[in-house]
Structures are given as structure tokens and as C-alpha cells.
């Protein structure tokens, strides 16, 4: 309705595009550097949240780095559209533009800064503290390319035969004591319920769920910013979440964590005709957290569009594993409708239902420490119950 009203007020509108939040093919959703900020002479490890629901194999990523502009004027071949338009062509011929270097492949990428970066500036020059940015390009293609055939990646980008995404990422490089760090996500809440890592978010068809991501208190870092008049202002970081899913719609694609506006997730199969219920009623939620100073973090979770008409799973017994590598086996009724078994803070991994025996099995997550945990049961019928016995982790 808002869209229709705005169309009437402003001008005519055409048919709506697929929202940015819906991931249907190759997408780069975020990039993270660790550490989030560099000093001259340091290096950062780079990771990207890259998803492609059309393929089971991971995409191929080629990482390129550009020298930082020590004068802080933003000059870089990595952010020059003229250079970028010819980048694929140059790369496929093995001749990268001046100032562009190969720095990684797939999940192995590091960006290093010369120790002498600011040597062109005199000691005490405020530009050393204000800093500059190192620029990184990530070329992702929806194909599997061996590391020894890098030129193929550029050719595929150039030819457009498979989907490719070119991503620009900047890392702040400066001198000084204070250093920005990446934010740390805490709880992921769907419909007010904290989703345990590895578990599904249960959502109901035709019913919106409020989604939220929390961050640790330390993620809201204090920092200072020099105003144009020279005054130094103390500030606290704003963390902004960006939401994505393989189906369904968000009311707010982006939301500040301290906002009083709610973000509602409309599961697939609702009113939107272009958003049908997936065959297996499942999908993925992704959320990228940014602190606007170069810090980034990701979080993802599966969601399941539950059906109250299904039978409720009932667990009678739970096996006691003798080692951490033993499979945890559950017995009872209607266990084919069991979606997740949550042991304390996390869900059991590699869930499997054996139709022949009627048993449900899962593995203990690596992060789960020794102890006794109550078992939460989450059914495809939208139920949330508890097992009659606890799980003892050796």
C-alpha cells in the first residue's frame, strides 16, 4: 500500500523488482577483515559471505588488492570504474592494471600493507592518524575453477557465461593507539525466540515474525571523530544489520540495532504471489552486521515454515554417548517430524531420521562442553517441547 501511495504521489510505477534481500543465485553479502583495521606493516585475513542457492558446490573467488593512497584522497585502480570495466579483460590476458595485485584465492586471502606506507608524509602529519584505506576486489563466479587456472575466472567474468559478482572492500589503515574491531553477534531472535546455532527458526505460513540480531556490549565501541572545526567528538558505534533470505520478505532490509523499529519477516507462501512456499518448506536466513568503520560480522540460520497440522514428535528415550563422537539416538513416536534437538545452547549436528527403525540421530557439536543438558525438541508442527531425559555429554 505504501508503494502504491508513493507511486500515486510521485509518479507512475512499474512492476516491483525482486527485493534485494532475496538470495536466488550468486551473491556476495559481506566481506570481513581480521583484524578489522590495520597499521602499516600489518596484514589482515579476508573472508566473504558468498552464497549461491543454485549450486551445491561453493563459488570460486579471486582476491585482488590495490595499494593504499597514503594521501587519503581515495585514488585507487580498484575503485576506478574505467579500470574496473577492463579488469576482466586485463586479468584474462594475465596483465593486471598498475597497482593491482593478486592476494588470494577462495577462502585463503590476506591483504598486507607496506611498513613504509606513510613515509611520504612527514612525522606528525594528521593524515597519518586520519588514515587511508586499502582496497580489495573480490571476483566471485558461480563455477568451480581450480587454483591453477585463475585466468579462467577472469574469462568467465568477461564472457558473462556464468554469473559473476565483483566486490569492492576497503580496510582502514592508519597509525594511532585506538583500533576498531569487528562486532560480535550475540543472539539471533526470530519471533522473540533465540535461535540456537544449528537449529531452525520456526516460522508460520502467513504469519510475520519479528527478527532481530543482538551484539555483544563490547561491539558498540566508543571512538572519537574530529569535526571540520577541529573539535573532537566522542561517539559510540552504530551497528547496522542487513538481512537476507532465500525466500520470504523482510519489512526492513536494514536496521540499526538500537532502532525502535521492528523488522518483520514474512515467510514464503504468504500473500506475495512471487514468493511461493519452497518444496521442502525450508530456507536460509543471513544477517550481516556492520559498524560503519570497517568492522563486519556475519550470522546465518536455517528457517522452517512449520505446519500445525502435522503430527507432534514425542521422544521416549535418549541414548547416552560414551564418547563425544558417538551418535545420539532418540526413540519415540513421529520422530520424522522432529526438526531440531537442542542441547543447551546448540542444536545437535547432522540430524538423521531412519525411517526403517523410526529412530532419530544426531551428533554432538564440537563446541558443546562436557556436562548434562536438557534437550529441547522442535517439531515441524511448530511445537517446542522437551525430552523426558537429559543428554550427558562425556
Amino acid at each position, binding site marked *: 500500500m505504501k508503494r502504491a501511495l508513493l507511486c500515486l504521489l510521485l509518479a*507512475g510505477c512499474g512492476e516491483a523488482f525482486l527485493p534485494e534481500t532475496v538470495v536466488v543465485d550468486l551473491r556476495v553479502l559481506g566481506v570481513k577483515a581480521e583484524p578489522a583495521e590495520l597499521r602499516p606493516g600489518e596484514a589482515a585475513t579476508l573472508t566473504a559471505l558468498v552464497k549461491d542457492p543454485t549450486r551445491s558446490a561453493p563459488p570460486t573467488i579471486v582476491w585482488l588488492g590495490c595499494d593504499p593512497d597514503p594521501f587519503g584522497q581515495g*585514488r585507487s585502480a580498484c575503485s576506478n570504474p574505467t579500470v574496473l570495466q577492463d579488469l576482466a579483460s586485463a586479468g584474462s590476458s594475465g596483465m593486471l592494471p598498475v597497482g593491482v595485485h593478486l592476494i588470494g584465492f577462495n577462502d585463503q586471502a590476506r591483504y598486507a600493507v607496506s611498513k613504509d606506507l606513510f613515509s611520504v608524509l612527514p612525522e606528525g602529519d594528521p593524515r597519518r592518524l586520519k588514515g587511508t584505506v586499502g582496497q580489495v576486489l573480490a571476483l566471485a563466479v558461480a563455477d568451480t575453477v581450480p587454483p591453477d587456472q585463475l585466468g579462467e575466472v577472469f574469462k568467465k567474468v568477461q564472457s558473462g557465461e556464468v554469473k559473476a559478482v*565483483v566486490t569492492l572492500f576497503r580496510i582502514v589503515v592508519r597509525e594511532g593507539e585506538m583500533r576498531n574491531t569487528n562486532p560480535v553477534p550475540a543472539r539471533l531472535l526470530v519471533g522473540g525466540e533465540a535461535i540456537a546455532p544449528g537449529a531452525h527458526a520456526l516460522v508460520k505460513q502467513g504469519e510475520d515474525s519479528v527478527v532481530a540480531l543482538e551484539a555483544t556490549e563490547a561491539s558498540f565501541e566508543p571512538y572519537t571523530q574530529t569535526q571540520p572545526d577541529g573539535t573532537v567528538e566522542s561517539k559510540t558505534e552504530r551497528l547496522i544489520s542487513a538481512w537476507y533470505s532465500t525466500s520470504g520478505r523482510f519489512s526492513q532490509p536494514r536496521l540499526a540495532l538500537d532502532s525502535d*523499529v521492528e523488522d518483520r519477516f514474512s515467510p514464503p507462501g504468504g500473500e506475495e504471489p512471487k514468493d511461493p512456499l519452497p518444496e521442502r518448506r525450508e530456507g536460509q536466513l543471513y544477517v550481516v552486521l556492520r559498524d560503519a568503520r570497517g568492522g563486519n560480522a556475519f550470522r546465518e540460520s536455517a528457517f522452517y515454515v512449520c505446519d500445525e497440522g502435522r503430527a507432534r514428535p514425542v521422544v521416549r528415550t535418549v541414548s547416552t554417548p560414551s564418547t563425544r563422537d558417538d551418535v545420539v539416538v532418540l526413540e519415540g513416536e513421529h520422530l520424522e517430524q522432529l526438526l531440531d534437538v537442542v542441547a543447551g545452547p546448540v542444536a545437535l549436528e547432522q540430524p538423521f531420521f531412519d525411517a526403517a527403525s523410526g529412530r532419530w540421530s544426531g551428533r554432538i557439536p564440537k563446541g558443546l562442553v562436557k556436562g548434562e543438558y536438557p534437550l529441547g525438541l522442535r517439531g515441524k508442527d511448530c511445537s517446542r517441547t522437551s525430552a523426558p531425559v537429559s543428554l550427558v555429554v562425556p
Partner: protein
Amino acid sequence: MPFAFLVVLALGQADGGAGVLTKAPALVRQVEARFPPALADAGASGTVVMELDLGADGKVLDVRVTTSAGAEFDLAALEAVRQFEFTPAEVDGVPAAVRLSYSYEFLFRPAPVAEVPDAGLEAVFSGRIVERGTREPLGGAIVSVGGLEVVTGDDGRFELRGVPEGQQQVTVSAVDHARYVEREDFVPGTRTEVTYHVRREVYGGGETVVRGKKERKEVAQISLRQEEIRLIPGTQGDAFKVIQNLPGVARAPFGIGLLVVRGSKPWDTRTYVDETFIPLLFHFGGLFATYNANLLQDLSFSPGSFGVPYGRSIGGLVEATARTPSQKGVHGYADVNVVDASALVEMPLSQSWSAAVSVRRSYIDILLPAVLGAFVKAKEALSFTVAPRYADWQVRAEWKPPDARKRFFVSYFGSSDALKVLLPNPALDPEGRGEFGTFIAYQRAVVGLDWPLADGVSYRMRTSVGLDQVRFSAGSDLFADATTVPVQMRHVVTRELPDEHLALSLGLDVLALPGKVSLQSPPVFKLDQIPDPFLSRQLIREDAAQSAVEPGLFLDAVWKPVPALKVVSGVRFDGDTTMGKAWVDPRLAVFWNVFEPTTLKAAAGLYHQPPDYRQGQLLQKFGNPNLKPEGARQLMVGAEQRFTEAISLDVQFYYKSLFDQSRQTLALDSGDVSTSATDLNYTSTGFGRSFGMEVLLRHQLTKNFFGWVAYSLSRTERDYFQGKQYGPSPLDQPHNLVALASYKLPFDFILGAKIRYTSGALSTPYVGALYDANGNYHFPLFGTPNSRRLPDFFQLDVRLDKRFVFKDWMLALYLDVQNVTNRRNVEAVSYNYDYTQQQYVTGLPILPVLGVRGEW
């Protein structure tokens, strides 16, 4: 007994000059024609139609018979009419020579039986004749009763003595008005005082037209009259919007109020009201002009090649002249439509002084939040702390003695547009700026004087002081705030040298722009540079006290060595203290009246203007104070052909080359970062050209019809590819056709229609996009600039007016329907988040606007 009435017709002038009749000549001395005795005995009747040339003083200079009623009637009519005297006619507010057609009707009636006059007991009949609905006095009306006749004066008053006793039929005849008949009882020794409200034949348009001999100096000027402006569909009667329908003016995207004249950017065209520069022509989005069109006497538009009296612009020129407030009674109107309400009151203060006050205020700020709130959840809606609102106001007092060529006026007018939006979820901006506001306002106080200094020497002065305020803000730390107190002085002395067939004008035209500007924003990125979100956070601030003075001096000469040839030449000196630059602009125009209805014309000139300082192009940190003035060379040739008194054709060809244009610099190509860059934000290296043809086939407003067909064929190119070659300008619009017509129907209905066809706008295709992982958005990679043309534009607008005329006031209903065919015209292209999909953005669907207007 002869009976005569006056008819004023539109007639052409030898020099092709055009002006607007602002005051019709009124007959003040009528000499009754001798009825030829032989014809009286025979009971003959006849009508002699004559052509009268009146001098600027209202005296009859020459009379010719154009339709004969026989030699004796002709002779009698000529004898009488040569002794007539009229009040001076005025063209564009100035007494002028005009040409009239006058019909003298000889109607034989038996002479009344002679009665012995009894001076002590005669019946006296007096009163006033006014127009029904407007209460405007009808001068020159003929009141007939009992064989007696009298012509009303300028104030509509009359008096007859010795009216026959008893009930008599009274008849009132006036040009363009229905015959009025009434019966009155007359009693000897008493005075019968009446006021008759005589109905105009047709309301809402076509009054009689006189094209006076106002000196024509612009080769490409088009003048519009108030009555024409009101009837054009799709403009809501707004004079300034009418300009968008003239040759040379491209249609702006979404029909917003930008004047793109001969391919020039909007900054290149300036608008003047009473020779005073106004900085904002339209309220938000071009809804309405910021100056009330109902206060205008006329409006002239020059798409180029204008003379030296105006400088500081290299594109077009819009000149509006305010009219003298009513000197004949209290008049006004109140108008209510879907977006705003306006009212005007004007009145005489004394015999020479009159005044007018008008005001307009939108109520979008009241309606829009309520409408949005009804449909959208409060937390998700755009929240307006100050919804879009606009207002404008005009006050004018003028001293103008009757029949004098001098006048003095004081006027104060202004405009204000404001908007403040609060975004409840400001997540797009990492700093959380969710409050955006704009405020644009201007005010002007103007003093004007027109004064004849001596025989053949006149002086004109316009001095104004203003206050311009522009404020943009996003959050608390991004803002642009400019306050200027513009002072403009124009003094023009004109000397006519009849023996040399020469008129010289010397003018001083000074514009001072003292003020201050505060601007705090991210640094200016290069035109093709991907904005760096980290650099964007390092705000830059500039506080500048400005004292720009733009002195101008011009000398203008109009020379007519032979009646058929007129040469207008001049030179203009201008400067700008901010840039520290001065320039000289010579200009020349030639008119050759080859035959009576055909005039050839040509012009050449040099034009300069300061770069767009409103965008900060002359600021130290955000612009470049060392820019050069932007320049243009303009050439034009054309011809005007008059087919009838009402129908004319104007064809012109032009070429305009642009040089020293301010342009934003581009990013460096190479990745070399070993030295600090020192390149500027803007340089004066831009260039371009525009050429084309403009055709205007026009039917002047007559009693029932007016309209025009305007066609522009043009090409506009600008420098691209780092200034190495020409490419199509984003403002290029090769074909632009406007056909409009308005016709007056019976029962005070007026029907109008307008068709507009233009080439589609140019756009730059995207060849891909880069995902900015820090900013979380896609930056498009541009293809060849302006290499794709969007589909053509077509729109049909229709307007229907109905007027209800009451004794002392009128009620007008109007229905203005835009885009009657509901065509989905493409205005722009929108893209999905990563620029892999696109679709057209279409303009407004069919849009009916209903309005009510009361006039008194």
C-alpha cells in the same frame, strides 16, 4: 437620425511590432454626422466602415473608408469622424498610436415631434453603465432613450437632459457587449439615476485586440497575453508554465518546472519580474510559479539572441511585467483547488494610485500526513515534521496619472518552500541521519519609475533589495546554508532622434550579492569516482562571506535608416568580483520588412554568465573561484509571415556554441598514488553546441479562438570522454511539438485542448555494477553517456471552463484534465539493486483537476 457604434479590430503594423493593448481608446468627443438630406427624404440607411489612425495623444490622424455606403454617406461620415477625439490608447502601459476600425451606421428614423423645452421641468436621466460580473465601467457605450443618445465617459457615467415624459425604452450599446434594454418612467422636473449591468458577449477570454506600435527589438521574442495564458490546458492558468509550451523549450522529465531552453541547462535561463531577477521560478516540482500570474500584464520569452539590456545568462530570457492594479473599482478573486488556495484584491486608492495584494498557500502539509497516516503504519511511513508547503505573496502600489506617460510603483513579493522529512529507520546512513530538510525562500522589494525627462528622452529605473535563503540539511552535521541580500539597480535613459531614425538607450545594470554561505559535507568526489564511505565521514566545512558584485553597463541602439529596415545593435560590459573577471558582449539584430506581411530577421551575439554559484562552483573548498565566465556565441536567422490579422508564422534557425563551461573533473586513470593529487573540483574546460529550427504557427486571440502549433527541431551536444569530443547532451530533445487551441462555446463555456509530442529523454545505460561491501550497495558501471533514447512522449490535455455571471461577481468552474488518453509515458528508467534488471518509470496517469474560482 444617424446611429453609430465603435468596433476596434486587430490590425497589422508596418514594422511588425507587437504589443499588448492595456488601455483601449475611449471616445470623448463625438461629432454627429450630417444625415444627407436627399437620403433622409428617401428614408435610406447605410453603414460606413472606416479605418482610423490615432496618434499617441488620441487625436485622429487619418481616416479612410474601407466599406462604402455610397458617396454621400461616406463623405458625411468622414467629416464627422475627423473631428472625433479619443483618450490615448496604451500599449504595454504606454500611450501609443493605434489603428481602429470604426463603423458609422446611418439609420433613418422620423424626427421626433418638436416640443417646447421647459427648462424648469425637464426630466434628467443619469447613471452609470458597468459590465455585469466585473463591475468594470463601460466607457464609450451609447445610451439611447426617446430619440436622445449619449456616449458614456471613461468612468461609465452619462447624463441626458430633456428626456420625454412617461415610460420610455432605454437601450445601451457597447462593443463586445450584448444590447441592454430597459424601460424607465421619466417625470419632468425629476432626475432618474440608474446603474445598468451590461453583459459581455463572451466571458473568460477574447477581448478586442489592438496590436500597437511598441518597438520590437528582440528577434526571437514571443509575447503572451493574460487572456491567452488563462485558457491553456494543462497549465492551470499559470503564465510561467505556458513558457514550457513554446518553441525552443524542451520538456523536462516528469514535467517539472525546469526551463531547458535550446538545450541549455536551467541555470542558463533567467527570469525577471519587472526587470528584477527572481531566483526560483516554480514551487516544488513545478506545480505553480512563485509569482501570481494574475498580476501580470504580459509575459515575453526569448529562447536566445536577446539584446544587451539583459546579461548574465547564455540561454533564454523570461520577462514578466506586472500590471497596474485596478483603477476603476475593487476587484479580486478567490481560487481553491486540490493543492492550494489563493486570493487577490485590487483597488484604486485615489485617482492616480491603486494597489493590489495577493497571497497563495498550499495545504499539502495538512493533507499529506493525514493521507499517509491513514494507509501506512506510522513507524514505517515517511514522517513529515514539516510536510511540503509553499506560499507566495505579492503587494503592489502604483501611481499612474490618467493619460500620462509616467508612473511610479512600489512592490514587495516573495516565495517560500519548505520540507522536513523524518525517516524512522535511517539505516541507509551509517551515521543514522534520518532527518532531511529543505527551505528555499526569496523576497524582493522593488521600486520602479518611468519618467519622461524631455521631449524624446525618457528615464526608467528599477531598484530592488531582496533576501534569498537556501537551506539543505541531513541530520545535524550535513548542511548547506546560504543567505544573500541581492541588490539590483537598473537605470536606463532612452533618447529618440527622429531625424536620424535612431533611438539610443544607455543602461546601468548592477547586481550585488552580499551574503554568507556555510557548507559542511563530505568532500566532492570526482565525476566518475566510486564514493569512499570512509572519506565521506571526513567532513569538510566552508564558511564564506560573499560580496560578489556584478556591474553591468550597456548601450543599445535602434536604427531605422529606411522604413523597411531596422538594426538593433548594442554592446554590454559585465564583470564579477568573485571571479575577478570582466567581459564584453556585442550583439546585433536586423529586421527587414521585405513586404508588408513578411519580415526577415537575423541576429548574432556573444553571451556570458557566471558559473552556477548556487551549487558552490565558485567556493574555495568545494568549487573553484578561478573559473572563467561561461560563454556562448549565438547566431540566428529567420522569417515572420503574417497571413491574416490573426494568423502568423515564425520560422527561425539557430546555432549556439558553448565554451568555457564549468565541468566537474574526472578521477585519475592510473593507480599511481606516489604523489599528492592537486586537481580541482571544477574546471572551465567544458564545451558544447546546440543548433536547430523553431516554428511557431500562431492564431492570435480573437473573439472565439486562439491557438498555436510550435515545433522545435534541435540537436544539443556536450563534451564527453574527458573533453575530447562531442556527445549528445542529456538535455538533447530533437523533436518537440505542441499544438494547442481554445474555443469559446455558447453559454460561457470555453473548451481547450493541448497535444504534446516530444522525443524521448536520453539516458546512460549501465553495463554492470560493482558491489561495495562497506557501503552495502551496488555502484553502477556506466556505458556510453546518453547513448540510449527512451520512448517518445505524447500527452493530450483538455480543459473546460464554465462561467456563471452574476450581477456583481462571477463564479468560474474549471476542469483541467491532464493525460486524457491515460498514456503511460516513459520518464526514466529504474533498476533493481544490482542493475541487472530494469524497467521504465512512467509519468502521471490521467489526472483531472477541478477548481472553483470566484471573481468580483
